[in-house]
């Protein structure tokens, strides 16, 4: 479990100005805190592809955006992520909640693009979006790390700096609900 308060404090330390999001259950606590705090502007988008284009515009305009989406949204965003934030080389921290991580972890499944097939994607006990999350990030060339618990909040600053250094999006996968 990761406390929303710790994540918010990290984002503030990094000078984040805008969070672009489609909410989900895992980010609920973080979003509620962001709204209650009011220090960072939350921009609701209608689909995740927009988040990457708006983030690219915000960065070009001198701001410090962060994208907060579910892994389903990562799959939604395909061409927008490719054509905006990646193609423009926008240093961009992406916080991605990892739906289905627990079921994947319990089975000890290490999915690679080569092991993805229709059978795996249709298995009842697995969430297929979890199956595709890491292969997708790899395919898009987006480096990622994990935030499992409070002790991992420093991964946020690390990913942020990596994004600045590499001049590209870098993801942190949030594997449990924020509290």
């Amino acid at each position, binding site marked *: 479990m990761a406390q929303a308060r710790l994540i918010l404090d990290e984002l503030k330390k990094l000078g984040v100005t805008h969070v672009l999001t489609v909410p989900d259950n895992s980010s609920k606590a973080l979003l509620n805190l962001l709204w209650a705090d009011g220090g960072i502007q939350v921009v609701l988008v*209608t689909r995740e592809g927009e988040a990457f284009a708006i*983030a690219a*515009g915000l960065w070009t305009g001198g*701001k410090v955006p962060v994208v907060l989406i579910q892994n389903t949204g990562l799959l939604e965003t395909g061409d927008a992520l490719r054509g905006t934030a990646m*193609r*423009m080389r926008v240093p961009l921290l992406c916080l991605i909640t990892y739906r289905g991580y627990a079921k994947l972890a319990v089975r000890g499944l290490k999915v690679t693009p080569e092991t993805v097939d229709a059978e795996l994607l249709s298995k009842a006990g697995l969430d297929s979006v979890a199956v595709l999350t890491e292969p997708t990030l790899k395919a898009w060339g987006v480096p990622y790390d994990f935030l499992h618990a409070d002790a991992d909040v420093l991964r946020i600053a690390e990913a942020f700096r990596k994004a600045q250094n590499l001049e590209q999006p870098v993801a942190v996968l949030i594997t449990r609900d924020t509290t």
Partner: protein
Amino acid sequence: MPRDKSFWVPGIPSSSKRSHQEVTFLTKRELLEPLARLRTDQVVITTMGIVRPWARFSNHPLDFASADSAMGHAADFALGLALAQPQRRVICLNGDGSMLMTLGTLVTIVNAGARNLILFVVQNDSYEITGNQPIPGARSVDFSGLAKSAGFRRAETFDDRQEYERTLPEILHHPGPVFVTVKVEPGDEEPLSRRPEESALYLRCSLAESARGLRRALGER
């Protein structure tokens, strides 16, 4: 003057051609030349079949082509700029096919309260740069109606050059977000590319370099 453009709409079976229907529209020059004349320090984002024509009227450090990017993501990129630079106006010249791809952005723009954004849709009723295939809803979709329903403070449609020229100065100063549909005659723009030999100056560098150029230009102002 009404001009019959029924001849050019491809993909519509001849039996359903409404040959008596006359449609009026502007040329790209009639759309762009007055805008370039009135433009001062606004950011101008172009995309698709408007990218090269705009460069024939304008060469400004705050011009940016959403080209070699992602289709449908010029308006939301412009929204990001508008939110980052609330003291400056941002004008986006979007394609109609591109607008259809991300209609939700109309709602996002209004919800984000981008008072400094002016969104044009260049309604040529076609996917011009891929060969003028008709867009879904060609000749029937009312983009300004969609924008009004989404909550734009002002949304109107022009198919007459004089009316457009008369109203444009006011539109450029109206509190936004403002939406403008301009019915434009179809052209034959080629697909876009970014390379040193491009006629349009802002297509001569990569998208990443172009974004950095705009970022610098905005930082200096």
